């Protein structure tokens, strides 16, 4: 007799636990809002410090800030800055003439930004580093100076 009552109790407890689970799913069924973001119809929500594609900065006079001091290249753990070349000017006037950033190798670790003594680079909000070939993931100085997203273009 004890066994049978145990079985009945077990069945009752089991059924109750399942009912509780169903109640939780029901409450979530009715809960709004939905957490789905309608990407890419709407751009992904990016917070200010997001570390995405590298961006080169200009100063107030519109001049490139990067002086090709190679600090970022030395700081990078994965050799994601394969090419930096300065122009012919000397001293304070020197600026970078060529700069390549390899988006395929970059870890987005921020070491280059921290190493730069001139605050010339930052990892910006661009979250898409895709390309159709390996060369596409490399960005040269002109592309690194572009604002993202390009005005008039959807963010993606």
């Amino acid at each position: 007799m004890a066994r049978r009552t145990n079985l009945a109790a077990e069945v009752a407890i089991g059924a109750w636990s399942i009912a509780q689970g169903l109640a939780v799913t029901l409450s979530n069924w009715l809960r709004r809002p939905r957490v789905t973001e309608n990407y890419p119809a709407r751009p992904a929500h990016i917070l200010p410090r997001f570390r995405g594609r590298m961006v080169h900065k200009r100063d107030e006079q519109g001049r490139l800030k990067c002086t090709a001091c190679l600090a970022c290249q030395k700081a990078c753990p994965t050799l994601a800055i394969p090419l930096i070349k300065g122009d012919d000017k000397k001293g304070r006037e020197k600026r970078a003439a060529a700069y390549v950033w390899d988006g395929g190798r970059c870890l987005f670790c921020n070491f280059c930004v921290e190493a730069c003594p001139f605050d010339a680079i930052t990892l910006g909000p661009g979250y898409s580093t895709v390309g159709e070939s390996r060369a596409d993931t490399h960005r040269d100085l002109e592309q690194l100076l572009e604002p993202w997203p390009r005005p008039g273009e959807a963010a993606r």
Partner: protein
Amino acid sequence: MSLAVGAYQTLMTWWLARGWFGWIAQFIWMLLMAAIVTAFVLLTVLILVWLERKVSGDIQSRVGPNRVGGRFGPLQTAADALKLLMKEDIIPTGADWVIFVLAPFVVFVPTLLVFMVIPFSDRWVVQDLNLGVLFVIAVSAFPTIGLIMAGWSSNNKYAIVGALRAAAQSLSYEIPLVLAMVCVVVAAGSLRVGDIVAAQRGGHWFLLRFPLQFAFLIYLITAMAEVNRVPFDLPEAESELVAGYHCEYSGMRFGFFFLAEFAHLFFVSAFCATLFLGGWEGPVLPPAIWFLIKSYAIVVFIMWVRWTLPRLRIDQLMAFAWKLLVPVALAAVMLTALVQLRGRW
């Protein structure tokens, strides 16, 4: 609709009066019925797959399909079906080719066949057999053979494990299912589905009649097991067996298994609505609409359960069937018979 039927009957009478081969007309009528039922089932499956994705999305705080065909994504299933049709048809080396190809049909055709006895409304039933319930029980057992064929012929260990699990599960849950249906048959006094619906006329649903509530619960649980849905979806346990018995199927062959599963799901829900909820009965709205409402209510409930519960292991599943459901179902049958007898005295 009745206009068309009337026109057809006039044509039939004229044809037979000529003495021509009447069986040709009968044959064409059968084909027509089969086509209509198949079309209805396929359309329903399309809707059900979309519904499943929407319901699961809603429960999980997300939006289901919302791109294809407008804001609610109604054409998503059609897109998926098109995709399946365009996929490469892979038959694994070493697979038993004949059985491999036949298996999807053995699973799909019986699922269509059982729709023959369900009354969609007070005038629409393909063939209201005198042994309707028995017919359903017999034909519902067929897809299991198809599962075993699929698992065996795939030449894959995961598939064979899934197939054997499917066989064990199907056989075990067949018994409480039949017993639950027997309860209803005892209460209605006939195996004919039309009689069962008639016995519930005027709002006296069998669900409200004691002790058929037990039969209702048992029917729901075993129906979920027969359709291989969580918590009984071991044969196709995705996270363990990578789709179990149909893991070697690709393209439209897989599509057939998928279709069959949802068609079977709709059938058990419709049958539950017919047996326990009064079928097409209901005030104000046309009977066919009531039938659909009740069937879809059961479908949504089964989906709700699916997205809430974890999966049972094979031995626990069998223990549940044999040690709990069968005794309770037997007791329910005896109780129903007693109550029925008492009512007659």
